[in-house]
């Protein structure tokens, strides 16, 4: 395993520029075998990323965002991890590659920015060395060239006096500076896709904005695609072209950013938006947090996984799983039986606290349900007249 390149380098440069998406993820499942059972951390996720575009992946802690990004990279340990589905990158199937080939893609074509700049840099190596390493490895630069390139990279990520700072150790830098160094490392070999896994979570708000602006600038300059993984809708709102909202390992809504914010369909997405504190709120106003916790991924609830926490959940939601479907515009997908229309749920008005009546659990999805039996609660989708069979389970 020693040595730099034992394999014929994969020719990525001449594949996939312009035609077709850069990254295609199809029905990706990732599960962990644990003593308690199998944790289905990523459960059937599909999406595409086009060259030069930004995709935001949003979800609360435990929704599977980080596992998804590591699963795309192929970074998860082989033991006790079950992965199925495919990931195509630049025309190559990453999921079918062995590690030796992946190593040629990693860093050179596909790289990752980590969440915590405090731990993602090697504490005992000078930052210049850490940047130069991948230049020497992938671009076969000599030491001197790599060093001067490292200085240029530090300058390009906005680190003042880069000539001196290449000699510094990570502990001599602030958190924001370290994240800049991380970005410099990730972008050193001019990758075509960067996975940024919560790149600003460890930083304070003003620095967050700087780092995200920097990333956006560099992205424009280098025509990279970026996958921005975050729990903060505010972070992706102005920076992503498309947004995927994840819940309990599944995609629950996917849309171009404007559409997502203007025509939110999924109550979970709405709830995420409502949980962002607003300056305009009167002081002392209670934050509209989402009650409860994400479900147990070993025994996920039947039906819609968000149903137990959803204000508008109906019996149908608890019984059958809503498919990812479109209404009107083809690029707006969501998984909800009763999508919001203009911010108002199309679900029949059932008080949340009432819950299910005694016999409700036993009846089929098309039976009249709930305590307010006068609503045409289920059967046809009240909002849209979607042609698919509403009882379809995926």
């Amino acid at each position, binding site marked *: 395993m020693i040595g730099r390149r034992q394999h014929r380098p994969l020719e990525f440069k001449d594949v996939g520029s312009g035609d077709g998406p850069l990254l295609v993820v199809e029905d990706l499942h990732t599960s962990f075998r644990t003593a308690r059972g199998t944790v289905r951390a990523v459960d059937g996720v599909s999406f595409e990323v086009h060259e030069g575009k930004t995709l935001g992946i949003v979800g609360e802690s435990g929704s599977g965002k980080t596992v998804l990004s590591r699963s795309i990279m192929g970074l998860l340990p082989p033991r006790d991890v079950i992965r199925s589905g495919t990931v195509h990158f630049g025309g190559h199937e990453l999921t079918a590659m062995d590690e030796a080939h992946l190593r040629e893609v990693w*860093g050179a074509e596909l790289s990752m920015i980590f969440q*915590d700049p405090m731990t993602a840099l090697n504490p005992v190596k000078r930052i210049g060395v850490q940047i130069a390493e991948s230049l020497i490895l*992938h671009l076969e630069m000599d030491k001197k060239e790599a060093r001067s390139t490292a200085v240029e990279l530090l300058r390009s990520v906005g680190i003042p006096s880069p000539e001196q700072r290449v000699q510094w150790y990570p502990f001599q830098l602030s958190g924001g500076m370290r994240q800049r160094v991380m970005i410099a490392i990730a972008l050193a070999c001019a990758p075509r896709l960067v996975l940024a896994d919560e790149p600003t979570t460890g930083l304070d708000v003003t620095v967050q904005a700087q780092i995200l602006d920097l990333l956006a600038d560099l992205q424009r300059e280098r025509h990279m695609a970026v996958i921005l993984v975050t729990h903060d809708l505010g972070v992706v709102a102005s920076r992503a072209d498309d947004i995927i909202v994840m819940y309990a390992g599944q995609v629950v809504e996917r849309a171009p950013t404007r559409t997502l914010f203007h025509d939110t369909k999924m109550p979970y997405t709405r709830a995420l938006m409502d949980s962002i504190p607003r300056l305009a709120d009167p002081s002392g106003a209670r934050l509209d947090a989402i009650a409860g916790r994400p479900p147990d991924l070993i025994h996920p609830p039947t039906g819609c996984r968000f149903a137990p926490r959803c204000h508008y959940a109906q019996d149908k939601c608890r019984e059958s799983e809503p498919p990812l479907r479109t209404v009107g515009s083809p690029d707006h997908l969501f998984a909800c039986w009763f999508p919001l229309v203009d911010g108002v749920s199309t679900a029949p008005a059932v008080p949340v606290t009432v819950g299910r009546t005694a016999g409700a659990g036993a009846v089929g999805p098309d039976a009249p349900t709930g305590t307010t039996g006068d609503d045409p609660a289920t059967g046809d989708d009240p909002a849209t007249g979607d042609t698919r069979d509403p009882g379809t389970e995926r």
Partner: protein
Amino acid sequence: MPDDRELLDTRNSDQLLGDRFPGMAATEESVLAISTEHLDGDDVLARKPLGFLFWFALGWVALVFLAAVFANVIHLQSPNFQNYSALNQGPSAAHWLGTDDLGRDLLARLVFGSRVSLIVGFAAVAIGLVVGGTAGLISGYKGGRLDIALNAGSFIILAFPAIVAVIAIVTFWGASLLHITIILGIGTIPLMFRVVRASSLSFAQRDFVVAAKTMGATDTRVVLREILPNVIPVMVTFSLITVAGVIVIEGTLAFLGLSVNLPTPSWGNLINEGTSNGALSTDPYIMMWPALAMFMLLWSINLIGDRLRQRFDIREGVL
């Protein structure tokens, strides 16, 4: 450039400070001088002095080393030359440290005796470090069955009563310097293995290791370039402590007559000579010098190890 903004911000706040409290603001020139010519972080590593004791200890170790290496060159008497006209003498101009009951020069015996201690101490630990350290690095990083197997092996060696093993092997092979070194070297392998493995394990799943992988580093590269540099401070410190421990064990073996054979001097058998046949009451110097020299050497090695740990532990170094 956003970071220039950061610097400007400091300057602005200084100016604001200066507006309100004249005299407290840094002048623009001085701030710029700091920001461009002299970066604060450049001399962080140079700040903490190692202290007098460190240099004293290092000096003592160096002295012992040099004396051992150049024992034949510097004008010493033969350690085994018996001068019957000078028995049991105290320190004098002719015999700086005195003589023993056979009239042998104690300084010469002390210096030649140090060779055994130093060779056994450092060579045994080198064996342990190369074998145990390598195994520990791989075991901690790779985990899995290999780790379980190597772990079990280390426990087997550790569980074996060392002194029994040494007595058995010395009885069969004979007590030469080489044999003693190898035996004690094998004894240090599991110690080194366990310490290095624990340290390697703690770094194996760190983000920077994963980050290095995402940049295309091979396993070998990750172990050598990412993990090893982090483990080295632990290795150095623990090695030095182990050297001290091995020197003591060699001394113990020599004291029991299980190390190199007389009349070849070693610190252990010198102490043995100094305490046998009532020599302790008639001529305490025989026992005192090697005991003192050994004490000083062990103290020095431990102190050096400790100070180096403080120095190289970057996280602690900042404080």
